[in-house]
C-alpha cells in the first residue's frame, strides 16, 4: 500500500513534468537589440502605429521594436504588476497624467539631456502647454507620442432638415443654445454630451464661462462662474433634454453616429469611424463662451523604463517617431494633429489629412484638463463626475451639488499641504 502511494506520487510528478516539457516556451531574444514597447492604441489607430514601428524596424537592422498593444485599462494594470516586480517594458506610451506618479517613484528615466535644439527632439517643436506636461520637478521624463484637440462634430443633414445653415455652424454660446433648442424641438437630441468614461466634455463648458475645477491650487467648483455655467448647461440637459444624461463617451459617439443627436464634442479619433458609418458631418471649433475660445487637449507620451539598458536605441526610436515624415504618416493615418508646431500649418499636412489640419488649427487655445495634478483620477471620478451626475439626474440642485463637490475637493487638496 505504501509503496503504491509513493509510486502514485511519482507518476503524478511525471505527468506534470511531461505536460510542462511538451509545451513550447516563448521565443528567446535574438541578436538585434530588442526594445519592448507597450501602448494602448487599440482600435482604428493601431494599424498606423504598427506601420510606423514596422517602418522603423525595417530601417534599423540592429534594433527591433517588440510592441505590445493592449487596451489602456489592462496596460495600466499589467504595468502596475510588472513595475512592482522591477519588470516591465523598455518603453511605454501612456497618458500624460501618469508622468507625475511614475517619475516621482523613480520608475521612469530622467531624459532631460535627450532634447537637443535642431533635432527631432527639439522642445521648440511642441506647444508650450505640451512641453510643460513632459516634466516633473524641473526635469524631463517624457516625449510626445500623440497630441489631440477636441472639436464639435455636427450632422449636416439634421442642420439642413431643421432649417439651420450647415455652412454656418454656431460660433458662440447664444447661437449654439438657440440651435440646440431648435434641434431638440424637432425630435432629435441637440447634442450628445459625454459625462463619464469619456474624454472630458463638461470641463470645456466650465472653461467657456471662465471657471475651472482648480484655480490657483484651490477648488474652483463653487465660484460664481462655475455655478453659472453649471446652472445653464445643467438646466439645458435636465429640463430641456438637449442631451440624454449619464452618457459614456462611447454612448455619446454612438448617438451621434446613429443620427439621433445633431452634435457631439470629441477628438480626431472619431473622424474615420463616422465616415465609415456614412454620417454626413463636419467639424467646427467648440462655440466660444463668454470667456473666449477654448478646447481640451490630450496627449499620450513616451516614457522610458528607468531600468532599461538600451537608452541609445530607445532614443533613436523616439527621434524617428518625432521626425517630420513619421509625424505626417501619423496624422495621415489617424487624423490626429501632429504634435510638432512646424507641421500644423504645413500644406503637406492638409494634403495628408485635411481633418487633421482642422484639429491642428485649434491647438493655440487648447488646454490640458488638470495637467500635473496628483489627484487627477480621484478628482475626476469621485468629485467632478458625481457632481455633474447629481445635477443632470436631478438628484440635487446645482447649488447643493457644487457645494458638496467643493468641500470634497478642498479636503483632498489640503492633504498635500
Amino acid at each position, binding site marked *: 500500500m505504501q509503496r503504491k502511494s509513493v509510486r502514485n506520487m511519482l507518476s503524478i510528478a511525471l505527468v506534470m513534468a511531461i505536460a510542462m516539457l511538451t509545451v513550447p516556451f516563448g521565443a528567446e531574444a535574438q541578436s538585434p537589440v530588442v526594445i519592448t514597447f507597450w501602448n494602448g492604441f487599440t482600435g482604428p489607430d493601431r494599424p498606423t502605429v504598427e506601420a510606423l514601428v514596422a517602418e522603423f524596424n525595417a530601417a534599423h537592422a540592429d534594433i527591433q521594436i517588440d510592441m505590445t498593444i493592449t487596451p489602456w485599462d489592462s496596460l495600466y494594470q499589467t504595468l502596475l504588476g510588472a513595475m512592482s516586480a522591477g519588470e516591465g517594458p523598455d518603453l511605454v506610451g501612456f497618458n500624460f497624467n501618469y508622468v507625475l506618479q511614475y517619475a516621482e517613484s523613480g520608475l521612469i528615466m530622467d531624459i532631460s539631456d535627450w532634447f537637443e535644439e535642431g533635432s527631432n527632439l527639439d522642445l521648440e517643436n511642441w506647444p508650450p502647454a505640451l512641453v510643460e506636461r513632459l516634466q516633473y520637478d524641473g526635469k524631463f521624463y517624457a516625449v510626445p507620442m500623440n497630441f489631440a484637440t477636441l472639436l464639435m462634430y455636427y450632422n449636416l443633414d439634421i442642420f439642413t432638415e431643421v432649417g439651420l445653415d450647415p455652412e454656418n455652424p454656431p460660433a458662440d454660446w447664444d447661437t449654439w443654445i438657440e440651435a440646440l433648442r431648435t434641434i431638440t424641438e424637432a425630435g432629435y437630441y441637440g447634442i450628445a454630451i459625454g459625462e463619464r468614461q469619456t474624454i472630458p466634455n463638461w470641463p470645456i463648458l466650465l472653461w467657456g464661462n471662465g471657471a475651472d475645477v482648480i484655480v490657483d491650487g484651490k477648488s474652483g467648483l463653487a465660484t460664481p462662474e462655475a455655478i453659472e455655467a453649471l446652472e445653464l448647461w445643467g438646466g439645458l440637459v435636465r429640463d430641456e433634454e438637449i442631451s440624454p444624461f449619464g452618457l459614456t463617451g462611447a454612448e455619446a459617439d454612438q448617438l451621434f453616429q*446613429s443620427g439621433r443627436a445633431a452634435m457631439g464634442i470629441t477628438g480626431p479619433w472619431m473622424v474615420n469611424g463616422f465616415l465609415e458609418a456614412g454620417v454626413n458631418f463636419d467639424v467646427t471649433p467648440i462655440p466660444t463662451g463668454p470667456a473666449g475660445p477654448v478646447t481640451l487637449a490630450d496627449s499620450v507620451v513616451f516614457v522610458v523604463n528607468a531600468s532599461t539598458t538600451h537608452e541609445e536605441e530607445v532614443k533613436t526610436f523616439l527621434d524617428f517617431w518625432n521626425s517630420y515624415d513619421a509625424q505626417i504618416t501619423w496624422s495621415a493615418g489617424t487624423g490626429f494633429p501632429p504634435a510638432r508646431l512646424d507641421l500644423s500649418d504645413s500644406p503637406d499636412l492638409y494634403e495628408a489629412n485635411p481633418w487633421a489640419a482642422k484639429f491642428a488649427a485649434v491647438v493655440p487655445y487648447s488646454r490640458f484638463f488638470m495637467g500635473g495634478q496628483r489627484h487627477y483620477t480621484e478628482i475626476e471620478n469621485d468629485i467632478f463626475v458625481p457632481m455633474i451626475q447629481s445635477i443632470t439626474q436631478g438628484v440635487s440642485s446645482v447649488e447643493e451639488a457644487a457645494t458638496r463637490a467643493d468641500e470634497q475637493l478642498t479636503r483632498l487638496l489640503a492633504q498635500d499641504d
Partner: protein
Amino acid sequence: MGTSILSHQRGSRLFFTATWIFLAIAAAAILLPFVWMVLTSFKPESDVFAYPPRLWPNIWTLENYTDIWQQIPMLRFFINSVVFAGSVTIISLFLDSLAAYAFSRLKFPGRDILFLFVLIALMLPFQVTFIPVYVTVQSMGLLNSFAGLIIPRATNAFGIFMLRQFFNGIPHELDDAARIDGATEFYIYSRVILPLSGPALATLAVFHFMYNWNDFLWPLLITKTTEMRNLPAGLALFMGQHNIEYGLIMAGATLALLPLFIAFLFAQKYFVQSIVMTGLKE
C-alpha cells in the same frame, strides 16, 4: 438513461407541453444577444448603429471575417489559447480529482482543516492578490512561458470542492467492496470513482476550458511578447479607447465562441452518460 421524476405518468402530456413552452420562451430571451452578435458580424460598420435599430442586416457582408484574419495573427492566438486552456483543463482535472478523492474517501486527522483551507482559497479575489502572484511567478523565473501560465492554474479550489461534493454523492458500497477485495486507493480512485463521475468531470472540464479560454488578464500579465498572446487579447485590439470596431469584434467573438460551443456540445454526451447502472443494482 437519465433519471426522471416525471416520465411514465398519465396526464403528463399537458405538463410537458407547458414546460416546453416555458423553456422555449426562456431560450428565445437568452438567445437574443447572441443573435444580435452574430448578425452584427455580417453588417457593414455603417449598419451597426443605424436608427431605427434592426436585428437583420440591410446588407450582408463577409468583410469583417476576411478583415479580421488580415489584421491580427488569429491562428497564432488561436493555437496559444488551445494550448493554454487545453493543458490547464487536463492537468487541473487530474489534480482536482485526486485532491477531491482524498477529501471524500480517505480519513485522516487534519482533513477537515485542510478542506477549509481549500475553501479559503476561493475567498480572496484576484484583484487583491495579483501583485504577489506576479512577483512569485517572476521569482520562479517563469515569466513569459507557458509553464508560468499553466502551473499556477494547475489546480483549482473550485474544482476540488465541486468534485468532492460529487464524489460524496456516490454510494460507499462500491468502493468498500473494492477495498475488501484488496484494491489500492489509487485503483479505487481511477477504476471506481472516476468512471462513475462522468457528468461531473465533463462539467468541470467545460468550466476549466471556458474560464481559461476567455481569460484575458492572466496571460497578459504573465506573457510579454506578441507571440504568446491569446485570443481574447487579440480581440481586445479592436476595442479602441474611443472607437470600437463593432463589426470586427462581433466577428471575432463569434469565431472565439464557436470552438467553445462545439466543445460543449461534445461534452454534453458525457453529461447524460448515466452512470450508476454499471454496478449498483446488484
